[in-house]
């Protein structure tokens, strides 16, 4: 168990550093799409929601909570990605290509 926890924490810390590295270079004109794109990624919690709603061994209340979580996370994921795509489609250069 100790090793398992350490391994998860290790992943966590590395990912935080990676996030800092990736984002610091983004120009300010892309901040809104970046934010809403990141927002859509935070909908990854849908994985946890699916497991909670789908596990046959779960008691009814956990399944219900999981179901609501699936609804919320789906809103987050589809809404987030589509809105970001809509925004980015508008960023055009002079020559008209994206």
């Amino acid at each position: 168990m100790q090793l398992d926890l350490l391994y998860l924490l290790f992943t966590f810390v590395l990912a935080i550093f990676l996030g800092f590295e990736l984002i610091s270079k983004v120009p300010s004109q892309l901040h809104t799409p970046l934010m809403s794109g990141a927002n859509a990624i935070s909908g990854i919690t849908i994985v946890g929601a699916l497991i909670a709603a789908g596990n046959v061994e779960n008691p009814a209340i956990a399944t219900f909570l999981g179901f609501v979580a699936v609804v919320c996370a789906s809103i987050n994921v589809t809404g987030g990605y589509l809105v970001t795509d809509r925004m980015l489609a508008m960023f055009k250069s002079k020559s008209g290509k994206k």
Partner: protein
Amino acid sequence: MDKTILIELSYIVSAVLFIYGIKMLGSVDTARRGNRISALGMFIAVVATLLVQGMQYQYIVAGVIVGGTIGTVAALRIQMTSMPEFVALFNGTGGLASLLVGWANYQARMDGWSEGVPEEELISVVAIFLAVLIGGVTFTGSLIACGKLAEIPWHIESRLKKSETGLVALLLKAVRWPVKLTLDSKPVMYKGQQIVNSVLFALVLVCGAAFVYDPAGMYLPFLLSLVLALVLGVLFTIPIGGADMPVIISLLNSYSGLAACAAGFVISNTVLIVSGSLVGASGIILTKIMCKAMNRSLANVLFSGFGSTTTKTAKSVQGEAKPITAEDAYYVLEAASSVVFVPGYGMAMAQAQHAVRELGDLLQENGAEVKYAVHPVAGRMPGHMNVLLAEANVPYEQLVEMDDINPIMETVDVAIVIGANDVVNPAAREDEGSPIYGMPIINVDYAKTVFVLKRSMRAGFAGVDNPLFVAENTRMLFGDAKRSVEALVSGFKS
């Protein structure tokens, strides 16, 4: 191959796609593809999860259909000017989902913990508490931010004036007070606010400690900490004023990532931990950038309404503003060979972005060099103005950042300020007593001529006087920003 290994490998693939997607979001040319790659990563993660042993699909399918429809319809329908409140809203649903994942796991596993928690599951218990706490704060905090951004109290007020009688008016009157109390875009402050918040936060931690000590027996403290998390989300957000919204949205964005991360620790799932921390980190960086652009610390934004920390008094602004008519402004612009637009939230309010682009195009045909200078905190969310100008088909090469325009400002013939105020206030540079002293600004006052498009002489969000308006080279073009710009456009056309 063993199915579990296949699932874990798919998670690695989707984590890679997220990382790659975020990287590509960093440049205009690749951003759209980047977003789609990250969506593909999400799709793979979802499909892989469906392969997990012993799943029933009826609730999953129902949930995905309901949520997916709501999300799709909302995303396709919203106006670009309402983008900040929708990003806040979507963010809130993510936070709520993480809270519910934590809660569902608690319900499912608490029977197994009645004889004490095995050592290897202790991390799950702590993570459940954190997912509920961070997710709850994200959820209600985002709702309040969304309400403030949508200016709901203002809409209620304006409805009330029109329909003074009848059931609608009665209803509006009934909700006016609580709505105004929480959703006013001005900071909502009261005496002892920080003490109340600290006490409640301490209470949450106590409940959390009790819960971790004996999760099976401490159901009530768990529910109490859930409720307190929701209350804290509200209390943390109400003292934030409209102009500070870019900071708080970035911060809530970061929280939603951390909540997903906590949910990842609950179910020991690496893809949740990786993507959650990526989002958490990105939110923190944006928060930092926004704070820097306002020359304020995060603590200052979070705990004090604007200006309450300054003790020195600002110099009062002496002099008289010189108004100009649209016709005279047109003659000046016709002779200009370089023009810079500086948009602010007022441009979004007046929906003037299309008219502005039209004017920009006409100026360019007239031989002038046209640029759009955007301050990092202009508008209500990071990069808000850029999205609006992009919507109006302004090519992104014409959008310039503050640090690139300031050095050449002296060569600019006309700077046109549209609905911006604090971000072009020279007091931030010169007047040590000003509450916004030290905030980096776009130095429009160095341009040869400045036109300020403004409704009236009202002070900006921060309530600070702006010496720019009475400067020697400034001319005020009063009226609705969109109409003023359209008047200039018709000047060029005739």
